[in-house]
């Protein structure tokens, strides 16, 4: 029983990170139908920067945390400008898929060049102590993900619902032409969505580095996990993404414990493909008007 509880908490901890990263896809996808295929590499970058700033440059934890998030957000602003804006030509365009994949490869290889292949864990400010709940032992540094991510999500919701930027984001998601007629530049709003998405990636990476070893080659796998979450939930469904992220985290931990660590990924992606057969629009998607071609 205590093992199950322990696994549950571990699963939730990693799951909330997946959800955070996957929300980055959703934020931009609802606004203009594009997403950054190099999101995973951005998360990696957040983690590597975090580790570098705290362990090599000896900057204070919170400063490194903020810097990592801000730098990745800024980078994503540049990516939007260079790799998205020119290639965002309607629903069937594939150029932005290719261009953001190219960006991902470049980020990873350049990071490898400067950082080397080493991996590292950022010392967590909550220390290496254990939290004991009903006989289950969980590291504090793992458990702390849950409240931190919850706080970040609340911040995101407040921004989305209360700020005028959030209003414009919601409006653009609803009807891009209408927002342009109102005299608001939709390019600018797309850029804001990308900055937010980058912020989530940077925060996710920085957080992740406090409990898991980060190195330059974790990006692809992370990006794919987050994509799985987005597909499971439906890319345009933020609430569903949070739920799917948590479910995937828990499922992964249990599969690793009881079935096989070696083929854990296969199970995950197999599950995603099965879901696509069964519910192509995602598990939690509320049906809009469907066009039947």
């Amino acid at each position, binding site marked *: 029983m205590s093992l199950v509880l322990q696994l549950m908490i571990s699963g939730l901890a990693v799951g909330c990170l997946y959800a955070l990263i996957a929300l980055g896809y959703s934020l931009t996808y609802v606004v203009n*139908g594009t*997403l950054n*295929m190099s999101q995973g590499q951005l998360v990696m970058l957040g983690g590597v920067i975090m580790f570098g700033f705290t362990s090599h440059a000896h900057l204070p934890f919170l400063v490194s945390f903020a810097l990592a998030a801000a730098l990745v957000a800024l980078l994503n602003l540049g990516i939007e400008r*260079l*790799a998205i804006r*020119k*290639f965002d030509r309607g*629903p*069937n365009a*594939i*150029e932005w*898929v*290719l*261009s953001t*994949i*190219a*960006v*991902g*490869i*470049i980020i*990873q*290889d*350049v990071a490898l*060049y400067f950082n080397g292949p080493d991996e590292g864990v950022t010392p967590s400010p909550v220390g290496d102590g254990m939290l004991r709940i009903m006989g289950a032992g969980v590291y504090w540094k793992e458990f702390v993900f849950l409240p931190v991510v919850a706080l970040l999500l609340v911040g995101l919701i407040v921004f989305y619902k209360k700020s005028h930027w959030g209003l414009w984001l919601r409006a653009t998601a609803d009807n891009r032409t209408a927002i342009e007629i109102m005299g608001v530049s939709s390019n600018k709003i797309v850029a804001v969505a990308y900055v937010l998405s980058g912020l989530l990636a940077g925060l996710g990476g920085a957080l992740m580095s406090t409990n898991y070893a980060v190195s330059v080659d974790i990006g*692809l*796998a992370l990006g*794919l996990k987050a*994509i*799985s979450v987005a*597909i499971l939930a439906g890319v345009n469904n933020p609430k569903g993404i949070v739920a799917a992220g948590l479910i995937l985290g828990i499922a992964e931990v249990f599969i690793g414990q009881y079935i096989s660590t*070696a*083929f854990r*990924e*296969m199970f995950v*992606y197999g599950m*995603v*493909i099965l879901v*696509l*057969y069964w519910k*192509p*629009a995602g598990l939690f998607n509320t049906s809009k*008007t*469907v*066009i*039947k*071609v």
Partner: protein
Amino acid sequence: MNSFLQLGLRYRGTAAVTSAAIIVALLAACPWLMDTYYLNLLFMIGTFVITCTGMNLLIGYCGIVSIGHAGLMATGAYVSSYLSTQAGLSFWVVALAGMLMSLVIGSLIAIPTIKAGGVYLSMITIAFGVVIHEVLIRWDAFTGGPLGISGIPKPELGGYRFDLKSMYLLVLAVSVLVLVLIRNLRRSAWGRAMIATKENEIAAASLGIRKFAVQYAGFAFSAVLAGLSGAIYAHANSFISPDTYHFQTSVQLVLIVILGGAGTVLGPVVGATILVFLPELLQMEKLRMALYGGIMFAVLFFLPKGIVGTAGQLLGRKIRGYAKTGPSPARERNSETPQLFAHASSSGAVMLELNGIHKHFGGLHALKDVSFSVATGAVHSLVGPNGAGKTTLLNVISGLYSANQGTLSLRGKSLNPRSLSDVTMLGIARTFQHSRLFKELTVLENVMVGMAGRRRVGFAHALLHTPKQRRDERVMEERAHLLLDLIGYEGDRDMPASQLPYGHQRMVEIARALATEPDLLLLDEPAAGMTAAEIGQLEQLLRKLTAYGLTIILIEHHMDFVQRISDTVTVLDFGKVIGTGKPEEMLTDPRVIQAYLGAEEVAAGA
């Protein structure tokens, strides 16, 4: 000089075939001209050409990107190697098994992702490539783990054992064959259907083309080619390991296609040549992937059509410049259109009947209890102010939206519009409010796409360019010319549709819709943006069509035109039918005037 060039142009086809034959002959002589180092590189180019030609079909024609084809190559390589090392089967058998397994596994991931559409295929194929790589490392018993499989025997044929030279010749032969197949495909109804779907899937569906069918066909063929290329590589190299089938390999394959030029037959050849020689020239260990990423980015930014595509465009412009000066071959014009519309149904009977149609969009009630019937052979116009629900109604009839409530019947039989392409096959064709011609295709090809739903030959026929396919193609071409004659299009028929003036675009769209052989034609504001002369032409055309027995539902705002052409008018306002009747009655009805002009205007006028 000019006349010499024109003479050259007349024999353009022959010249192309001859020069291709010379190049292939030179390449075939390479084993006796080069050392093994270069021969190896040429061999690598060949294997890439085989895989990337399949991916070109996917990216350039179908408009979907797979970033997991290295995984499919691995499937072909490992299945064939396992079978030939463990079971001792001959190369020809195991290569087939490899292709088959690649097709099966590829289909498992492609079927749901193509249906889900958009970027899903790209995302899932990346995951697929990564998973396959993991499996290759961990499934020791089958794959030999990180060490891979070694001692894979070279192919044998009737006692002869292949060596590097003959393996190279084999790859050369297969590459050339594959390129020819793709060229055939592009010039068939399948190729046109693929490009149509890539450009505008709704317009393609309105011609009876199912997106899934064409895209899956493209994916399946590319999977088979990837499996084949994997098997050939494994048996030439006699050793394979997971390192060859990275995510990076898949990216490299995509890069080959877009660098060479997606959608051009020779693109993969040029792309593969560059990407095989580049690392040999640069000798760089670090930042190689970053360089590839940079090249990919630069190509997307500055050469979106790739090297061959851009060069072809420049050359094409020059050649067309010369060709214009020569006389265009005269085609015999037929003023009669005997075999275009076979089924002249008895006029007066009911073609389409709508009964209590409701359609909601969330809280918006776009259609409320719409009922009327359309007589066979009539022009039935739908009028009403903007937002009255006319286009929504057309979308419901044509199957693009499903009604929330109500029934339809076509020729007395219950009509259950499942999808746009489905309804087209039942004999209902439509055009759209905004022009949706396929810009990459020529005028003639646009009309021929309209026949793809009914008259497409099998995929194998299209690949092999069989006599049946050639016959079919001739029939379609002739019919397309007849339809263009019918709508009175006089201009260049081999011109890309993107260069047509607007009025002509609308007319060609009608010809394209007619190519689906409909009984019922739905026209959504065909006269919008037309000049008065063009409207006159349109009117003549509609009269001809009804004379052939076609039934037409017309949405139009030009009221005098509506009055002249219509047999019956239905007026819609706020999603409700105000009335159905003769045009002269309906258009003078005070309720109709009120709907158009508002209550106060009517009161003031009275």
